[in-house]
């Protein structure tokens, strides 16, 4: 009843002291909701849409980025409080109402929480909002005292005249500040002066989440409210033909049966009665055209569509020509399955439709879309629809959709009074908006050193963007589907093309944690690992060689590898795999350590992650997001698949749509790079990097390359795989004699001198992290013992040594004497 708590607080107009005491006593989040009209009536200083300061000193921060576990109800207020000079325990948090103009997400174009954007896009505007308010309060104080503003300073919601020690609280200044014009330009703090940002601040929403008082959408209580549960046609796109509700109506507590075109709902006093009533319905469905649809059909369609070129999304150099001239070419097909989101809070929405109004209580990532959807269904003007947002019990992309809100309003139109529509878990799994099935063809041409001279990646799948935001779907290219299609790497020639292939109508696909990066991270990082294996080069050093233009990627790669003990021996049947991605403005690498037993069962034992996400607002939340993202990713790797048979989803509940549990959770280490770069998103990268690290580790452990998720344990049975130790990927120098004695060195003091030395091969430099391939110069940059040199890769690449004698001083002793 947090919303009510707030309302009561307002009605009683408690003194500031009482209010702050109350907030501090609970130590938690007081959530409220208020429509803007009320705010305008109140005597408050409200310099912008994010801040209100009452005469009583109440500081309210209105948070537009919804809280679904990622910590925005702490990080967004931190940004404001940092510049406003208030403590977080002095503020009241309010859900923002739907308003694209005031609360639109600049990256997404409307009011939405998703795509790991919150900190990235509001990092500057929210600090500016706080600073603007503070400046106005300081001006108000200076004018009151008739002193210069520069002699005043603000701290803990009080302005002090420094020379005399006079003080005025923000509450006392609110009226006067409200009469001032906001300054056009305010200066923001030097980051070295941050007292909140960058510190591990306690989550404001945590206290209410450990004692059962946090109110999620499903917890809404409205006087007179009924509970409904629903069954939609199990076949995608099918309709309701007939319902016999005799038995359902006889269930104690059942009040009504509501029929929709494609669903039927039972309205009852409580969910127990509603479910019992639903089980008692005898429903005849009209399955429609998808009656015989199966996953195999979808895969066949994608396979066939991906045979032909798609729309060119990225072209650099002439990949076809480079491929034709390559020493070796490698091709692979990678596939990802349909997935449900399965957030722990089942889909729900409470609606009260009246003659001239509609109230919607829901936890949604897209408030204005929810409002517009309810307006469309009811025929009411937008301003007659009020959406009361709530804490979200897991979003992961599912609550970017309004399908269930539309359905709930359709049901509520037929119910007298408020009704809470709650989906069963079965309904949630079987009527999700699924992560698309992707079918990608990758190919690379390698030079004689095993490094790519050509990279092609054809992506085949539906376009979520074309459905979700048609105006963003430009020139036939889905920018999300192709995001990260070449990874963080530089290749001499690249061709990425996109084949849009939609499933039949009725089967809707949508965003799932990590979005395009989760898709392409798996494809690219799995395939890169194949190339490294083909080149007989250590996967870490192979990647390093391709990251010459991405120093931040290289540094997280190195950090993850070194923290994970890359290269240290593991028992037979165990292996390490690595991945490195750049997405949402963040560079992130993971090393997964797995054990594959003789039956093919895989256990992820340890994951080490290194991330450079630029400036960090709340480091502990960043770590938590990575930890959770990794668990989310492991679930998908080991178990995640939605299978369609006869037009229906086969999986039903957590017995058939399995989730990772405590006893399967690996040890997780997260290492954050201290960075002064712009903030990157951290909600999704942890998930995006996980799957490839695990399949690469499985390869290291078993010699089996898996190109499809979830992993198929049948392929990993001991009888069907090589001895784990037979494929230790140490470069075998004697196999490459043709590379000897040809190199061209440019380095200070030895400029452009051709030297012919036996000794190190470029592959060993790559393996040991001493050389990096720079594609624009077709050269390797080498650094040893503090000296930097450049190797020009001529007709045949190359070896190099830093002295005329065998490299006894080489940092890697292994090279000496070769």
């Amino acid at each position, binding site marked *: 009843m947090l919303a009510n708590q707030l309302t009561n607080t307002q009605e009683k107009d408690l003194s500031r002291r009482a209010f702050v005491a109350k907030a501090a006593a609970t*130590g938690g989040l007081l959530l409220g909701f208020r429509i803007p009209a009320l705010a305008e009536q109140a005597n408050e200083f409200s310099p912008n849409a994010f801040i209100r300061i009452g005469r009583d000193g109440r500081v309210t921060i209105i948070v537009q980025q919804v*809280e679904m*576990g*990622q*910590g925005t109800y702490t990080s967004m207020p931190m940004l404001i409080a940092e510049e406003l000079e208030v403590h977080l325990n002095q503020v009241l948090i309010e859900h923002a109402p739907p308003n694209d103009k005031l609360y639109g997400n600049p990256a997404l174009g409307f009011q939405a929480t998703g795509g790991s954007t919150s900190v990235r896009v509001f990092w500057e505007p929210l600090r500016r909002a706080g600073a603007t308010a503070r400046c106005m309060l300081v001006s108000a104080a200076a004018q009151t005292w008739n002193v210069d503003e520069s002699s005043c300073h603000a701290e803990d919601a009080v302005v002090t005249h420094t020379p005399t020690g006079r003080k005025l609280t923000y509450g006392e200044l609110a009226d006067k500040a409200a009469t001032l014009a906001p300054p056009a330009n305010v200066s923001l703090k030097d980051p070295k002066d941050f007292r909140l940002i960058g510190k591990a601040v*306690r*989550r404001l*929403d*945590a*206290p*209410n*989440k*450990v*004692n*059962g*008082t*946090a*109110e*999620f959408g*499903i*917890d809404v*209580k409205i006087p007179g409210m009924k*509970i409904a549960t629903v069954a939609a046609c199990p076949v995608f796109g099918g309709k309701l033909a007939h319902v016999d509700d005799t038995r359902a109506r006889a269930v*104690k*507590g059942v009040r009504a049966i509501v029929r929709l075109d494609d669903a039927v709902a039972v309205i009852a*006093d*409580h*969910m*127990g*009665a509603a479910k*019992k009533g639903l089980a008692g319905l005898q429903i005849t469905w009209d399955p429609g055209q998808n009656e015989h649809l199966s996953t195999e059909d979808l895969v066949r369609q994608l396979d066939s569509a991906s045979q032909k070129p798609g729309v060119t999304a990225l072209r650099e150099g002439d990949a076809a020509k480079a491929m034709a001239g390559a020493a070796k070419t490698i091709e692979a097909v990678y596939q990802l399955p349909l997935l449900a989101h*399965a*957030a*722990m*809070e*089942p889909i729900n929405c409470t609606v009260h439709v009246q003659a001239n109004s509609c109230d919607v209580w829901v936890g949604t990532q897209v408030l204005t879309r929810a409002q517009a959807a309810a307006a469309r269904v009811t025929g009411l003007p937008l301003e007659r629809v009020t959406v009361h947002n709530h*804490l*979200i*019990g*897991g*979003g992961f992309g599912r609550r970017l959709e309004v399908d269930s809100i539309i359905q709930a309003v359709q049901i509520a139109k037929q119910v007298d009074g408020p009704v809470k529509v709650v989906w069963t*878990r079965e309904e949630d799994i079987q009527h999700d908006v699924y992560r698309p099935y992707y079918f990608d063809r990758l190919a690379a041409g390698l030079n004689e050193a095993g490094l790519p001279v050509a990279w092609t990646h054809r992506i085949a799948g539906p376009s979520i963007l074309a459905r979700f935001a048609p105006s963003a779907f430009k020139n036939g290219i889905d920018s999300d589907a192709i995001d990260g299609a070449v990874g963080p790497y530089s290749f001499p020639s690249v061709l990425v093309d996109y084949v849009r292939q939609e499933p039949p109508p009725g089967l809707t696909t949508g965003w799932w944690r990590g979005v395009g990066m989760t898709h392409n991270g798996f494809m690219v990082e799995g395939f890169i690992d194949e190339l490294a294996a083909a080149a007989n080069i250590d996967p870490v050093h192979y990647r390093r060689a391709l990251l010459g233009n991405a120093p931040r990627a290289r540094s997280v790669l190195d950090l993850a590898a070194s923290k994970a003990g890359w290269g240290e021996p593991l028992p037979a049947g165990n292996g390490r795999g690595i991945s490195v991605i750049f997405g949402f403005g963040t560079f992130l690498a993971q090393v997964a350590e797995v054990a594959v037993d003789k039956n093919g069962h895989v256990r992820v034992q340890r994951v080490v992650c290194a991330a450079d996400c630029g400036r960090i607002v709340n480091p502990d939340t960043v770590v*938590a*997001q990575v*930890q*959770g*993202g990794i*668990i*989310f990713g492991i679930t998908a790797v080991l178990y995640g698949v939605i299978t369609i048979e006869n037009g229906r989803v086969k999986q039903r*509940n*957590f*017995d058939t749509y399995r*989730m*990772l*549990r*405590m*006893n*399967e*959770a690996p040890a*997780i280490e997260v290492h954050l790079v201290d960075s002064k770069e712009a903030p990157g998103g951290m909600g999704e990268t942890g998930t995006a990097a996980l799957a490839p690290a695990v399949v690469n580790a499985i390869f290291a452990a078993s010699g089996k390359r898996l190109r499809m998720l979830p992993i198929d344990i049948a392929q990993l049975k001991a009888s069907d795989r090589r001895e784990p130790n037979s494929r230790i990927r140490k470069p075998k120098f004697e196999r490459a004699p043709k590379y000897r004695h040809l190199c061209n060195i440019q380095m200070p003091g030895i400029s452009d001198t051709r030297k012919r030395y036996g000794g190190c091969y470029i592959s060993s430099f790559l393996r040991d992290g001493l050389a990096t391939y720079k594609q624009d110069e077709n050269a390797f940059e080498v650094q040893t013992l503090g000296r930097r040199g450049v190797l020009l890769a001529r007709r045949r690449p190359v070896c190099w040594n830093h002295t005329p004698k065998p490299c006894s001083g080489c940092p890697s002793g292994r090279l000496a004497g070769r």
Partner: protein
Amino acid sequence: MAYQIKVNSKDHQVDVDGDTPLLWVLRDVLEMTGTKFGCGMGLCGACTVHLNGTPTRSCVTPIAAVGASVVTTIEAIGETDPGAKIQKAWLDLEVVQCGYCQSGQIMSAAALLAGNPSPSDGDIDRAMSGNICRCGTYVRIRGAIKQAAQSSAPTARRG
């Protein structure tokens, strides 16, 4: 028919079918929404309450089976010693993310600690693997249970 149940030391009378799961009596009839619905099949643990101190999935416990058992929910677990320690450790280690499953996690953890003051990793696995967390807070849950156990160790030794 009407059933008498005792929840968090308070008596209630509810008039529902005997096969109505306790979960819906708590959430929809008594309006105690701290206990969560996750799966309806006893698979995820979100609905965990204590019946006479034993962790029980309320979504598969018919009201008729509750009888005279004392029901404890998340709303009152903080009044018990293990419950309070678990809640404190949960806050100290910042366990929660979305928080939806945490009522059930805390109820399972508090029951574990009540019966086993210093649980091993294996004990934690056995007690907690019935509780799914989709946000993936397992690493912190394990740490928080250990911290809570340490904070309760002196008491246990005295006992």
